[in-house]
C-alpha cells in the first residue's frame, strides 16, 4: 500500500524526472486508446492472476517443466517421445471479470491544472482496461455519481474495448458523490465474483464510505480503490483569499488560504488516514493518486500491489495450492 502521507508536488516532479511518461504530455493525446496503449506498453505480461482457474483451448507453445508447475499440464505425449517433461501452454480464456467503477460526480471535474480529475481517472481506467484486455480478462465499466449513469458488463472483445474507451471519454456531468446507492446496486448486479476497481475522489464522509465499500466486499469481490485527488486538493497552496465555492453544492465560503491551509491539510490527512484504515479493515487495496502522478507509476504500483496480494493468497492457501496453469509471469 502507498504511504498515507499526502504526496507533494516535488515528489511528483521527481517521478517525472525519472523518464516516465509525463501525464500532462500523455493527456494531450486525444485518443483514450492510444493513451492506454502508451502506458500499458512494457506491461505486456502482467503478474496478477485470476482468482479462478481457467482452461485453455488454443495451444501456443511448450515450456520445460519447472518445479512447482502443476503436473496436470504435463504433455505426456512429448514425455513418451522424448522422455522429458514439458508443459503445454495454451492461449488462456480466463474467468476474471473486472468492473471498473468510475466516479463521474461533479467534484471529479475539478482541475487545478490542464486536466481534471475525471480525465485523469478516465485515462487511468482506460489504462487498466487496456492492460486487462491485453491479458484476456473481461472488463466492464460503470460510471456513477449519485446513481449509476453508464453500465457496460464485462466483455473480452476488441470491439468492446473500443466502446468502453469511448464511454470513458465522456465528461462527468453528475451531481454530488454518493457512493452508497450505486455501489449497493452494483453489489446486487454482480452475482459472480470478480475484481472491482473503484476510481473516485472519495469526497464523502468516512462513515458512509465504510458502509458503501462494505457492499462490494460483502459479495466476495476483490476490490481495489484508486483514490484520485488533484494536487491542489492535496496541498491547498492557494495564495489569494477568495470565496471558495463548492462545485457540488454551490455553497460559498470566504477562505484565506494562508490561514486555512494548515487546518485544511490536517483535516485532509485525517480523512485519508481514516479512508486507508477503512480499506485496510475491509481488505481493499487502496491507492492514492495525485493527478500529476505518471500513469505507468500508477500501474506499477497497482501491479506490485497485486503481486503482494498473490503472495498473501499463496501464504493463506499454502504451498502449491490454488495456482493456475500460468507461468511465473502470468497471474490474474
Amino acid at each position: 500500500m502507498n504511504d498515507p502521507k499526502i504526496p507533494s508536488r516535488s515528489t511528483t516532479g521527481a517521478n517525472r524526472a525519472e523518464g516516465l511518461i509525463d501525464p500532462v504530455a500523455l493527456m494531450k493525446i486525444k485518443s483514450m486508446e492510444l493513451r492506454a496503449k502508451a502506458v500499458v506498453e512494457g506491461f505486456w505480461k502482467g503478474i496478477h492472476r485470476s482468482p479462478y482457474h481457467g482452461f485453455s483451448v488454443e495451444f501456443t507453445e511448450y515450456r520445460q517443466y519447472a518445479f512447482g508447475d502443476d503436473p496436470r499440464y504435463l504433455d505426456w505425449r512429448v514425455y513418451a517421445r522424448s522422455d522429458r517433461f514439458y508443459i503445454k501452454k495454451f492461449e488462456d480464456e480466463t474467468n476474471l471479470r473486472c468492473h471498473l467503477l468510475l466516479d463521474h460526480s461533479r467534484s471529479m471535474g475539478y482541475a487545478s491544472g490542464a486536466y481534471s480529475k475525471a480525465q485523469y481517472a478516465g485515462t487511468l481506467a482506460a489504462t487498466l482496461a487496456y492492460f486487462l484486455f491485453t491479458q484476456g480478462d473481461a472488463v466492464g465499466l460503470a460510471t456513477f455519481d449519485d446513481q449509476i449513469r453508464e453500465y457496460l458488463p464485462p466483455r473480452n472483445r476488441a470491439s468492446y474495448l473500443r466502446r468502453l474507451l469511448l464511454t470513458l471519454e465522456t465528461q462527468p456531468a453528475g451531481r454530488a458523490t454518493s457512493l452508497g446507492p450505486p455501489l449497493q446496486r452494483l453489489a446486487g448486479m454482480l452475482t459472480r465474483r470478480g475484481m472491482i476497481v473503484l476510481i473516485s475522489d472519495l469526497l464523502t464522509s468516512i462513515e458512509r464510505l465504510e458502509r458503501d465499500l462494505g457492499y462490494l466486499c460483502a459479495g466476495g469481490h476483490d476490490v481495489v480503490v484508486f483514490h484520485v485527488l488533484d494536487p491542489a486538493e492535496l496541498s491547498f497552496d492557494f495564495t489569494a483569499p477568495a470565496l471558495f465555492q463548492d462545485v457540488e453544492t454551490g455553497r460559498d465560503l470566504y477562505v484565506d488560504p494562508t490561514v486555512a491551509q494548515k487546518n485544511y491539510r490536517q483535516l485532509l490527512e485525517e480523512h485519508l488516514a481514516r479512508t486507508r484504515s477503512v480499506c485496510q479493515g475491509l481488505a481493499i487495496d487502496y491507492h492514492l493518486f495525485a493527478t500529476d502522478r505518471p500513469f505507468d507509476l500508477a500501474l506499477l504500483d497497482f501491479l506490485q500491489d497485486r503481486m503482494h496480494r498473490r503472495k498473501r493468497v499463496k501464504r493463506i492457501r499454502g504451498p502449491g495450492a490454488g495456482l493456475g496453469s500460468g507461468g511465473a509471469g502470468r497471474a490474474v
Partner: protein
Amino acid sequence: MSLLYPLFLAGIAAVSLPILLHMIRRHTRKRVTFSSLMFLRPTLPRFRSRSRLEHVPLLILRCLVLCLLAFAFARPFLARPAASGAAAPSQRTVLLIDTSASMRRTGMWDRVLDEARSVLRDTGPADRLCVMRFDRGARTVIGFEQWETMNPAQRASLVTQELSRVSPGWGGTDLGQALITAAEAIEDDETNDAGQARAARQVVLVSDLQQGSRLEALRAYEWPQGLQLVVRTIPSQGATNAALQLVTKRDSLAPAQAQELPEIRVTNSGEAARDHFELRWAGGDATSETASPPLDVYVAAGHSTVVPAPARPQRQNAVRLVLAGDEDDFDNVLYVLPNLAQQVNVLYVGSDDPNDTAGMLYYLRQAFGTGQALTSHIVHRPASGVLDAQDIDTAHLIVVTDALDQRNIAPLRRYLEAGQSLLLALKSADAGAALSALAGAGPSESQEAEVDLYAMLGRLEFDHPLLKPFSDPRFGDFTRIHFWKYRRIEAADYPGARVLARYENDDPAWLEIPVGKGALLVWTSGWQPSDSDLALSSKFVPLLYGTLEYGGTLPSRQSQYFIGDAVPLPTRAFSQAAGLQVRKPDGAIVRVGAGGQAFTETDLPGVYSIADLGSPGGIVKPEGLGDGRVAGVPPALRGHDARDRSSGDAAPRNLPSFAVNLPVAESRTDPLPVEELEKLGVLLKPTAGAVSAAAQRAAHHRSFSEMESRQKLWRWVLAATFVVLLIETWLGGWLTRPSPMPEGDQP
C-alpha cells in the same frame, strides 16, 4: 472663512472608516470553485498593513467626500467685517408711539419725544422709516413714502416737527392692533419696494406698556418672521394711580329712589404707595371750584372698593366726580350726569273718568308708572273740548279714545306730520270719525263687530318695530287676550295703512297709518276690561312703551359711554333733513348729517350735548351745564324738555346729553411685562444695554446665520461633493472592472 456649526467638522473623523475598509482584504468578489469545502473552515478577513493600502486614489477620493460633507454640514460662510455707518444694511423701521390717555402722565410725553428723537438719530439715510401713533387704533403720522420723499438731511427735523404737533389723546390702548398695523405696514412696504425686500426690519415701540393695553388681536395674528420689536418703555414717575368707575345699575327699570346716589368704584394700582384718597363733586369744567365736601376713600394697593358718591350739590351743576390723592391725575375725573330719568308727557284725549277703575285712562296711568329711567306725566283732556296747543306740543304721545272735536283735528294732524305718534283706540264706533279725520281719508264707517263670545288675535306682524319685541316665541303668545268687543273697519279705506294684527276673522285689530312723518296707530278695541283683556295682560305695558319708543322718545338705555364708543342718536322724532349737532366738551361742534345713526367722535371725556338743527332757533346749548337748567330741574334735566322751548321762541330744542368717560382699562397703569408680548409670538430685540453675554452670542449667531443664509456656500460644497463622488464612482468601477484572467483564484 468661518463656520456656523463647527461641531459638524467632527464628522471628518468618519474618514477612518474608508481607511479601515481599504486595509481589510476584500476579495470576496473573487470566486474560486473548489471540489469540496468539507475540509475548509471560514476565516475572518485580515487587515493589511499600512504600507499595503490598496487603491490609494480611491481612498483619497472617498475621504475627500466625507470631509466635504462634514464641511458642508458645518455651514461655511465668509465672515465679513461688522457693518458700520453707511455700509450698514438698510432697514425698515416703524416708530410706534403710544398716544393713549395714560401717556398724559406728568413728564411722560417729553420722554416719548426724546425716545423718538433717539430713534431718528439711529436711522441711517438708507433706512426707511414710518411713524405711527396709536391709542384705540393706529394712525400714520409719517408714511414710508413720505419719508422717502424727504431730504435725508432734514428728515429728522421734519419728523420731530411733525411729532411736536402730536399729543396724547384720551383713548384706550389697543397695543395688539397697533403692532399688527405696524407689521402690516412694513410688509406692505416690502411688497411695494421689492428692491429692498431683504433689509432688516423692526418696529420700535415707545410706550408706557401698561397693563391695561389690549393684546387680544395678537392672539389671532402670526407675527412676521424676522420682524423684531424694540420696546422703549417709558416708566411712570409715580407709582400710585387710583381710578374711578361708575358702577352700572343693572335694574334700570327699578323704581327710582329719592336721593339715590351713584355708586363709584375706586381702584388703586398694585404698586401704589398711598391708599387714602378724596372724592368730591366738581363743576362742569376743570376750572370750576370744588363744589362739595370731599369723601374720604381708603383703597389698599392693588384693590378696589365701591363707595356711594358723595351727595351731589343741589345748587351747582356738578357733573364731575374728582378723585384726589394719587400721583397721576389723568384718570381722576369721572363725568356722571344726574339720573337719566326722562319725563314722558302723555296726552290722553277721552271721556274717561280718571278714577274709574274700569276706564281706559286708569290703566294707562298704571302702565306709565314712574320708573328709574322714565317719569311720566299724563295730561287728561276731554275729547269734546278744544285741546291746548301746548299740551299737544309737549306731548310725547297722544292717546285718543273717543270722537274728536273737529277743531282738534288740524293740530293733531300737524303733530302727526311732524313725526310724532298718536295712538287711537276705538272705544266705540263713534271714534271711527276721528280715525277718518286724522288719517286724512274720506268718510268711512266703523261699526261694532259682532263677536261670538270673544275674539282673539289671529295674525301679527312681528317684523314691525312695535311688535318686534314679541317675535320671540316665548313672548309671542297673544291667544290669552280675549277681545269681547271691537270695531270693524276696512283697512283698505286708509291709503298706506299697514295692518299689524288681525283678529281670527281677518278683521284688522291694530293698524299703522302713516300721516306725514308720523304714524297713526289704531287699535280697534279698547283695553279696558269691558272691551278686552289687553290691559290686564302682560303685553300691555310693553306695547305702550314700544309705542313710545317707536315715536323716538326713548333713544337708548345705555347708562354710560367711554372714549371711542358710538353713541346712538335719536332719529325719528327730530328733523331728519336738518340733522343734529353735537357739542363736544371742548366746545367743538360736530354736525351729524341727516340719517346719521350714531355719534362716533367721542374722543374727549366730558359731557356731550345734542341739539336738533330742525328746531326753531337751531342753536345748540353747550351741554346744558351753564344755563342753570341742569341743576334746577334734576329729574328732567337730560330729557328733551319741550317746556324750555315754550319759554322762548328762539330756544333750541335740546336732546339728551351724554357723558363720556375714560376707558376703565386705561387706568391700569402698572407696567406690563414685556414677556407677555413674547408669549404672543412677537420677536423681541434685546436692548443694547441689557444684552447678556449669552444674548450677545445669540445675536452674533443670528447675524452669522443670516450671513450664511445669504451666501449659501454649502450648496457649492455639496456640488463639489457630488463631483468627487462621481469621479470616485467612475474610478471605483474602473479599478474593480472584471479582469479576463483573475490571478488570485489559481494556486
